[in-house]
């Protein structure tokens, strides 16, 4: 350990620089690339699911199924069609991959890692080696989960929420419990939780202790605040899920009955467990994480958008302080809303009422955030750069996602909407066109800092417009189908429930009326996939062929990451960083230029001298 300290890292060997790197920027990139690959895989699984929903009686076309070997297809597809069990595997893994392996690592792992230390003027994270360990635990966990596709049992198949007793009985028939998808999923999850534990400890410590001189709390960019709150959510909300995961591993491998009620009957007869456990306990433990997790997904994305909007409207972020307080309140409230996922479990109406109240309350800080960003646009001279396009799309898309959630917050309405496509539509609006658009904005925004080149604008438009159109065609019909009562777990899209014409089966007729939307949504999904091709091309070609940046601060932004060389070297800053003012000093009338970066020393002849920063500097 101590030998390392004296060693100079100017030219570390390949494996140290790119594989087991301890540099927060490289780790950020590792996180980003891995997360994007996982997102691609999760998207692919969903395409196979959407095929099965739209064309349940037709084989999956070869352009989709080639990914899996013939042997695999022989085992898991029937006449080339996706079976219920296979669909369940895809569904469980789609959710898991998107949430745990895709969006969180991209938002928190990639952007958080890359940008946070730069924005607070730190040379690196507080614990670089922990940072490295955090990435590798994440990767191992992800590989454990996805690798189980090729086990005899197949991969996890009980939804990303993994509810028992279904999940306890899934794969229980295999002699070697360790090598079943369901157990591997749990163990992978424990890895991911350990990874995020290391990550969150690291982030919070870094933000508390490694801020540059003059970087007071209220001068932190909103991005950093969001990361701080996200860190706390991960730190405190994940352990109960780890408890649930460990308990379920014990259930599976040692035959205990934590989540098995007495007298459970399955297809194999009465189960031989001792019984006496409670499936509801798992749900409580799961959603204690599950709900804060939503904000873990959301906050990094909002954080990216909150950085991009002021830089592209050339005016300060409106209501910075209210946003900071809102995000803190949001973080706190997110711990006491979890049971709104469980209205239909029979946990009691007084419990439901409590959680209904807190759930409605939490919409207040969310609305504060989104409103502040919306008002930030007002009167700005908006530059429609690529990141700004995505950021602007984020606002209404996330708005739809949030507003469609309100009906679900009321347990009376939830009776009807629970487990329908409405729920799917709602949270996908939050996560896909909402959060992912925000993260795309982030990629386009910080790409020039990461590689010294802009991403191509034409390809950007080819990516943006089709994505915006098709993603709405995917998710909006879901809201309609959901209100008609389409269940979220139909692997055949309602085929089995459809009544023939002239039937008196009311529900069957409703299904008949709305089943046609399946094709519209599925085709949109395939086109949406096509729309990602320009992005992938852009990502790689811009790295070598993109337009070079003119300066270290290509967007003329004010926050500290733009004070570094491009790309930033090991240790980040080439000068002694000091911060003199708040993060969003755009278009100050007393400045010549329309931005006043945090690190610029005040000039004696402008009234900007009166900045609090200089007063502080004199004290020192």
């Amino acid at each position, binding site marked *: 350990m101590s030998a390392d300290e004296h060693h100079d890292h100017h030219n570390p060997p390949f494996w140290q620089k790119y594989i087991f790197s301890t540099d927060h920027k490289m780790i950020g990139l590792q996180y980003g690339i891995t997360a994007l690959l996982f997102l691609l895989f999760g998207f692919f699984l969903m395409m196979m699911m959407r095929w099965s929903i739209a064309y349940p009686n037709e084989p999956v076309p070869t352009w989709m199924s080639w990914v899996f070997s013939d042997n695999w297809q022989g085992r898991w597809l029937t006449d080339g069609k996706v079976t219920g069990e296979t669909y369940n595997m895809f569904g469980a893994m789609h959710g898991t991959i998107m949430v745990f392996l895709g969006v969180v690592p991209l938002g928190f792992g990639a952007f958080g890692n890359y940008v946070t230390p730069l924005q607070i003027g730190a040379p690196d994270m507080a614990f670089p080696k922990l940072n490295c360990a955090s990435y590798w635990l994440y990767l191992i966990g992800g590989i454990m989960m996805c690798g189980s596709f090729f086990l005899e049992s197949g991969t996890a198949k009980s939804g990303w929420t993994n509810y028992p007793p279904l999940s306890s009985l899934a794969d229980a028939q295999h002699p070697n419990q360790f090598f079943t998808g369901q157990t591997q999923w749990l163990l992978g999850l424990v890895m991911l939780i350990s990874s995020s534990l290391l990550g969150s400890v690291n982030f919070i410590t870094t933000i508390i202790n490694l801020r540059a001189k003059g970087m007071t709390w209220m001068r932190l960019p909103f991005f950093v605040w969001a990361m701080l709150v996200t860190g706390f959510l991960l730190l405190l909300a994940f352990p109960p899920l780890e408890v649930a995961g460990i308990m379920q591993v014990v259930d599976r491998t*040692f035959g205990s009955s934590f989540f098995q009620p007495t007298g459970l009957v399955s297809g194999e007869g009465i189960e031989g467990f001792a019984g006496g456990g409670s499936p509801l306990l798992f749900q409580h433990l799961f959603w204690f994480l599950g709900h804060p997790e939503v904000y873990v997904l959301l906050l990094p994305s909002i954080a990216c958008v909150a950085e991009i909007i002021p830089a592209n409207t050339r005016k300060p972020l409106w209501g910075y302080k209210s946003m900071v307080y809102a995000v803190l309140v949001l973080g706190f409230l997110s711990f006491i809303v979890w049971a709104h996922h469980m209205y239909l479990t029979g946990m009691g109406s007084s419990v439901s009422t409590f959680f209904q109240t807190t759930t409605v309350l939490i919409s207040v800080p969310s609305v504060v955030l989104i409103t502040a960003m919306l008002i930030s646009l007002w009167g700005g001279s908006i530059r429609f750069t690529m990141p700004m396009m995505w950021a602007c799309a984020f606002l209404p898309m996330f708005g739809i996602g949030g507003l469609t959630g309100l009906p679900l917050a009321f347990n009376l309405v939830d009776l009807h909407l629970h487990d329908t496509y409405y729920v799917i539509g709602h949270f996908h609006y939050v996560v896909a066109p909402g959060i992912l658009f925000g993260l795309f904005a982030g990629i386009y925004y910080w790409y020039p800092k990461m590689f010294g080149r802009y991403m191509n604008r034409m390809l950007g438009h080819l990516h943006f417009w089709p994505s915006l159109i098709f993603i709405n065609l995917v998710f909006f019909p879901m809201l309609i189908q959901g209100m008609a009562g389409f269940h979220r777990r139909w692997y055949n899209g309602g085929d089995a429930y459809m009544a023939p014409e002239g039937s008196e089966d009311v529900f069957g007729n409703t299904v008949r009326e709305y089943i046609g939307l399946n094709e519209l949504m599925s085709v949109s999904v395939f086109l949406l996939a096509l729309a990602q091709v320009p992005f992938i091309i852009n990502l790689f070609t811009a790295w070598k062929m993109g337009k070079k940046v003119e300066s270290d601060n290509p967007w003329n932004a004010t926050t500290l990451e733009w004070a570094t060389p491009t790309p930033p070297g090991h240790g980040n800053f080439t000068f002694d960083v000091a911060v003199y003012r708040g993060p969003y000093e755009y278009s100050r009338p007393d400045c010549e230029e329309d931005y006043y970066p945090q690190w610029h020393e005040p000039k004696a002849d402008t009234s900007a001298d009166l900045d609090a920063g200089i007063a502080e500097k004199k004290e020192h």
Partner: protein
Amino acid sequence: MEIPYIVNPRKDTGLNNSKIAIWLFLASEVMLFGGLFSSYIFLRIFADYPWPERALPVLPGLVNTFILIASSVTVVFAWAALKLGNWKKFVGYMSFTIVCAGVFMVFKGIEYYHKFHHHAVQTTEFTTVEGHLHKESAPDEHGHTHGGNLFVLQTNEIKFALASYYMPYLDEILKRNGDHEIKFKDNYIVTRVNGDKYQEEIIAKAGDVVTPEQLKVVLAEAKEYYISARTHNQKVRTEALRLAWTKIRTAIKSKDAGDYNELVGLNQYDDAMKVAVAKLHTKLIKENATGILLNDADSLVVALDGTTIKLDPEWGRFGQGDPKNTKEGTKTSLKLKDSTVLSGVAGDSGIEIDVDAIDFRHLVMKAEERDLDVDVEIEKSPILHIKGEGGDKIRKLWATHKVWRDLFTAHLTEKYGEDEEGQPNRVPTEVDLYRVTWKQMVAYERLDYKVESWDDVENNAPTLIEGFSGANHKAFPGVFPNVIIPREQIRFESAFSPKMNNYYAIYFTITGLHGLHVIGGALVLGYYLFFGYGMFKSNPEWLANRVEVGGLFWHFVDLVWIFVFPIFYLM
């Protein structure tokens, strides 16, 4: 590049990095154990079986409590010694701390060992007896083998599931079968594809006798063939189905759809469409030139001559749920976890156990739920009707216990009086009333089954040391009745492992995780002890910081135990 505030605290926060990190980490740990303790509360409140109260021997837990507290004190001394620059003292205190951790784990290990080797058997009427299982033993004069916990099956037929049969099971079954004859029951035919020729070959011929080695070879071959045939067939069927859809879609788009005219205007989900596709699909498979469907039978069946095969109940779910299936002499088939099915006649699979506790609480609970007379129901329990010496002893024990509990009830009323309504202020617990513990068994034996005063039992029970880790079969030979419980009377059977019930499950989970924390903490502290000298020389302040952080963790581990001890050992 150097990360600031590794050693010296930052001025405005007053903390160095690792101090912040460890407190954050501990906050996370609080949530972890908080989740576990909340689960404990949840499971206990909603338990629909008698929660085992004060079920663990207290002494090991108590000793461990003091050991951990002592180590928490010495770890602070070790840190203080470092701060004062005294390496020798540091080594002394730190070594003591780590030795404490080791002793703690040894006691833990002893406790675990005794739990895993202690069993409970619950009858279908919810009486529980606890004790030591007899290992598998030689057949008695009637040719019966009791003991261990194995299913005995006079096996006539085994059906192997080709895709999933599990080698360890197969090996064990073949070993049990010994030299007895194994015969193929049906043909297994494979189709070899040679260019465009198909050749059928019988790799298992009905009636052929095989050795275990030959059987394994044939199974492996059949497995390989089955998987490739499955793949091949699926490909043929998939292509045909794809073609069927294309043909019908094209047909109904044209102006004259011919055979498919009635499908025009229908959508793909309509029944008529599905029927048409299925018809065409079948037709196309037959006509398809790219390949024919191969034989893909997924199992291979062998006949045995009624050999006695003993099966570990962990191999499947047999017997649980419907214990009557396992009654000696019934025809039955048992499905193992790997989908192998054994058919034959159930043998004598009774469990032989040296009983060191009899517990009627669950039975009482069930009887009360149905408003039945508790004492009548207890007398009906099969445990009280076992024939032979062991059964006599159990009846004697229960009769003695009833005398004692009446004396004890009277004693409580006398000592604590009655309230205005004439109800006693204190009554015995359910454990006192309906459970005969091993200590009571020893006392009753010593008293020759004659109890005269309530405190006779207390005065004659084994000492704390004798019962250090629970029922002590070595020190009190001949006290504990030996009985055989027939399999069809058994509802549930388990060692005192997590499987037993949720009390033991959460006990093992929490103490197990706590044990991992102890080991982890000891490793970290051990690292400072054995590899810290270099840093002590170069940067003593940094080492002191590290020890401080490790010590904080160590205190947390201690704190968890302070919660674990009362919750599991005393409540």
